[in-house]
């Protein structure tokens, strides 16, 4: 069975520094996810540039499917060496996790990764070799459902130096904390967040170094099916409704008329509300067995706006139909649209900008945006 790689990362800058000297890049591919972490020498702007360069070069070369030797060689040759200390540039860790759980890890001067199986940190057997005089460690292993892998920068391992501890938390100390967090049964998000907080506390809230942690694990894919728009051919009403009824995972209906069709064809009751959480988004409705029922056009346009908000895929927290829909979409991995193309004559008379008014256009833009967020999307037209 194929899974989805879930990954979360968080960084903290050294106290007083605005820029972080660690950098993370994530590349989602058809067959899996690649995570790259680099810790630039020192802190501040210079470290930030070094770490960013290192990860960007690495990810660029990985994307081109170049062999590992070439990638490492290029990085070693491209990046400057610190003149004063005569030590190299920045560290590098690259982790590729395939959707079937196979994993491949390379470490170049970075702290050993933490691999948790059944809640316990297990040693990873690293093979060593030298490329251009640099010691490279690599491991092939298998990640199973319930396992975790964490990559860290040394600011995590050294948490506490200058703060609570003389020699810092240490690798074993971090391992213990991760085991404790895993035992609490937290989400990956919360685990990473808590580990950052723990390190910050060891530093007495004034970290002496940048620190970063990346967590990854496998989970089962989450499915979502959305029915929207009445079909051109009314005899498809039943087929479309059945398709939604029998879909696996979550179910959403966008559109009042669509909801009426579904309710009629399946014999379910449609219940409307008049709770205007957001004056611009019509209220949601309820149908038993359907996770979310919203109005169509306006909600879809607003949802698209939320998903396209510059900079991130942060969860909108509102309780209006569009925020709820955006959340369902962001939390899903595979999304199936059932789109009816019957033109709602009434909408033609509305004073809407053309591109807002046409359902198929909104859907197409939504689909493209979702693909950009690494979702698998399928559309079926009716």
């Amino acid at each position, binding site marked *: 069975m194929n899974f989805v790689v879930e990954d979360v990362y968080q960084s903290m800058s050294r106290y007083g520094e605005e820029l972080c000297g660690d950098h993370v890049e994530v590349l989602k591919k058809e067959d899996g996810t690649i995570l790259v972490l680099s810790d630039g020498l020192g802190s501040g702007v210079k470290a930030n540039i070094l770490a960013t360069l290192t990860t960007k070069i690495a990810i660029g070369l990985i994307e081109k499917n170049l062999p590992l030797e070439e990638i490492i060689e290029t990085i070693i040759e491209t990046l400057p060496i610190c003149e004063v200390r005569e030590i190299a540039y920045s560290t590098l860790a690259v982790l590729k996790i395939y959707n079937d759980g196979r994993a491949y890890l390379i470490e170049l001067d970075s702290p050993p990764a933490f691999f948790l199986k059944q809640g316990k940190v297990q040693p990873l057997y690293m093979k060593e070799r030298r490329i251009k005089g640099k010691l490279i460690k690599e491991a092939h292993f298998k990640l199973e459902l319930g396992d975790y892998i964490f990559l860290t920068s040394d600011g995590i391992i050294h948490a506490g130096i200058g703060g609570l501890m003389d020699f810092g938390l240490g690798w074993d100390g971090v391992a213990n904390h991760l085991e404790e967090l895993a035992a609490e049964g937290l989400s990956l998000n919360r685990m990473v967040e808590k580990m950052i907080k723990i390190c910050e506390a060891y530093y007495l809230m004034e970290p002496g170094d940048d620190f970063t942690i990346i967590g990854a694990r496998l989970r089962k894919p989450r499915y979502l099916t959305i029915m929207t728009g009445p079909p051109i051919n009314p005899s498809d009403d039943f087929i479309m409704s059945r398709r939604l009824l029998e879909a696996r995972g979550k179910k959403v209906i966008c559109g009042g008329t669509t909801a009426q069709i579904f309710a009629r064809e399946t014999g379910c009751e449609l219940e409307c509300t*008049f709770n205007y959480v957001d*004056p611009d988004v*019509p209220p949601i409705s309820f149908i038993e067995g359907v996770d979310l029922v919203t109005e169509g056009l*306006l909600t879809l346009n607003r949802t698209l706006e939320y998903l396209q908000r510059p900079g991130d895929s942060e969860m909108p927290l509102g309780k209006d139909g569009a925020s709820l829909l955006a959340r369902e979409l962001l939390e899903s991995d595979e999304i199936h649209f059932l789109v009816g193309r019957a033109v709602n004559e009434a909408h033609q008379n509305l004073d809407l900008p053309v591109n807002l008014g046409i359902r198929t256009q909104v859907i197409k833009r939504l689909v493209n945006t979702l693909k950009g967020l690494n979702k698998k999307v399928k559309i079926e037209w009716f």
Partner: protein
Amino acid sequence: MKKHLVEVCIGTSCHLMGAQDLIRAVQGLPGEKLNSIQLKTVPCLKSCDKSPAVRINGQIFAPITPEELIKKIT
């Protein structure tokens, strides 16, 4: 006393044409008047070209203003 059943359409057209104002107008009625009304929302009443639409005791009125609506039910 028999209650008036007031069903306000919250479909896309009616939403844009002020369904919210109709709902608010009804909700703003004084207590005893409000008690004689059963307020509901419904999906498209198929009168979008004349939105906003309301169904009062089974009869559709579209378009309708908040004032007209209040007059009809009080």
